[in-house]
């Protein structure tokens, strides 16, 4: 009786240890694991006064205003590999009675233009600001151009200006980054 029990328990253990296994699984699927987060992130914003387009000291119009900022993460090697698509969204609120041309030049470390885009901004009125929205989608081959850049030059061009010009041009922007790791 006891002998039978001993043998059966021992064999149960032996069985368990030798048959213990990991079944119905496929670890090659690890290759297919991909994180695909979609990140929303503010980009740049500015507020320009109509008077910024006129040099009162010399009495001459300034037709183009230009500023540059670094976007250091853009040419990061991780982002270069994982960025699949970037949607830029710009929102202009214009109360200056002029239309504008706004251009974005993306520059590499060596100041070469790797990517560019731009839009026209509708003319506004001081009493009733006009909103212009501009969406620009970068995907495919263009992504590799965009991610060579680590800074952006923003140029705001007004067709004409004088010292009596009034109103403001406001821009807000964000980017939606579609990533895949």
């Amino acid at each position, binding site marked *: 009786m*006891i002998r039978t*029990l*001993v043998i059966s*328990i*021992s064999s*149960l*253990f032996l069985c*368990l*240890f030798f*048959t*213990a*296994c*990991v*079944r*119905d*699984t*496929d*670890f090659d*699927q*690890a*290759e*297919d*694991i*991909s*994180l*695909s*987060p*979609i*990140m*929303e*992130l*503010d*980009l*740049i*914003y*500015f507020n*320009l006064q109509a008077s*910024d387009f006129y040099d009162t000291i010399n009495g001459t119009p300034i037709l183009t*205003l*230009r*500023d*540059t*900022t*670094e*976007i*250091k993460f853009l040419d990061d090697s991780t982002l270069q590999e994982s960025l699949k698509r970037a949607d830029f*969204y710009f*929102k202009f609120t214009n109360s200056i009675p002029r239309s504008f041309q706004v251009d974005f030049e993306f520059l590499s470390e060596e100041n070469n233009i790797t990517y560019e885009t731009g839009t026209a901004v509708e003319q506004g009125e001081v009493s009733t600001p006009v909103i212009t929205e501009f969406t620009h989608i970068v995907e495919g081959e263009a992504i590799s151009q965009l991610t060579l850049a680590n800074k952006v030059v*923003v140029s*705001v061009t007004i067709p004409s200006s004088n010292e009596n010009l009034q109103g403001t041009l406001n821009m*807000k*922007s*964000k980017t*939606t*980054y579609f*990533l895949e*790791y």
Partner: protein
Amino acid sequence: MRNFLTVMLFLVGVLAISQNKQILYGFDDTPQSLMLNPGSKVIHKKHYGIPLLSQIHINGGSSGVSVYDIFNNGNDNINDRITKKIFEMKNTDFFTATQQLELINFGWRAKNEIFFSGGIYQEFDFISYFPKDLAILAWEGNSDYLDYKFDLGEVSTTGDFMTVYHFGMNKKINEKLTVGARLKLYSSMFSYRSVNNTGTFVTRLGDENSENIYEHTVENADVSVETSGYASLRELDGPNEVIKEVLGRTLFGGNIGVGVDLGFTYEINDAFVLTASALDVGAIFHRKDVENYRAHGNYTLDGINLIFPALSDGESTYPYYDDIEDEFEREIPIDTIHNKYTQFRPVKINAGLSFGFGRFFASDNCDCMNMDTGVLHKQNVGVQFYSIFRPKGQQLAGTLYYKRRLNEFISAKATYTVDSYSFSNVGLGVSADVGSVNFYVAADNLLKYGNLAKAKSVSLQLGFNIIIDD
């Protein structure tokens, strides 16, 4: 990132749970039951653990997910399965891994009837709670979660690697009561913890008065990581050097701590026995090689504000981006602190009530295994309770068991355990004496051995001792 995930998921599935040794507890046939209750009834006269082989214990688990959940070879996409699991799991779900290796273990009954025992073992213990919000943020991004406050405080993890020196005494006070205590000295070779963190990250859609489209805000952040035995490893060159240095700390080279185990056995009557123990009531005092990091503060990011300054030729504009980085570091600084700290050991509580029946006689003439007074039963049934204090509260387990002495040489114990991992944990332990060599093996979650991938936890203990009865 992908490799990291794979390794994490694999480790989580293959290793086992939370230090509960429900099979060995009260299994007096093995000397190691004294390590779970220093006040357990010792029926032998002397024992020596075979060095390095007297107890090998591995235990790992994950309360919310099994390997099978992720890697089953179904037709659906693995990423859909991960997504499903991330949302199913709670921030109180956890991953644990524990490993213990006895280097030395010995015990003897002195002339004054006190049973002394002592030894050295090495222990690795890890727990991490599932930081659900951060997992969602990494997996899905913030795009679908505007206005949602991602909780940074869900990060809660500890890890320890130490050597424990212990010495205990066990004495039968009277007919009914046996008590025991064990003093422990801990030598921590490496330790880290990141607990009691707070803070949120939220992306809100701004209104027309906002500076930009969104406001990205980190609120009330206070996240810290405390480490000891880490700073000096950082400068070392390669894994070999690190291993050499860590192992070099085995002999009191690390941070010292002290603790006790306490326990008793109370024989209520011939049939019922009540036992209980509290293990690792103590603390480690991290005094040397301590390095702590703390990030705290509030910050709102609106993006980059261009101001189109009038520049003369060759003059460069403001360093907008660097300014933002500087501002962030100013508002949420990461401080490196070298404060000493005290770390309480996770206290483990065991309790059991056993009902014995069928008097056991080793032979017809003499009750050789029971020279002492008291009854040795052939069969026992009982209930056990186990609890361990973890960063986010107690983890509990309840066990029903059946134990049987098959003959003079072999005893077996079967357990059914309900814990954070499952309601279907069946375990079995066998202790066999061949001459004076005692061998035991105990494993749980046996029902899952047919496919370990489906197990959320696995625990295994085995070892060899030399036991001398008289």
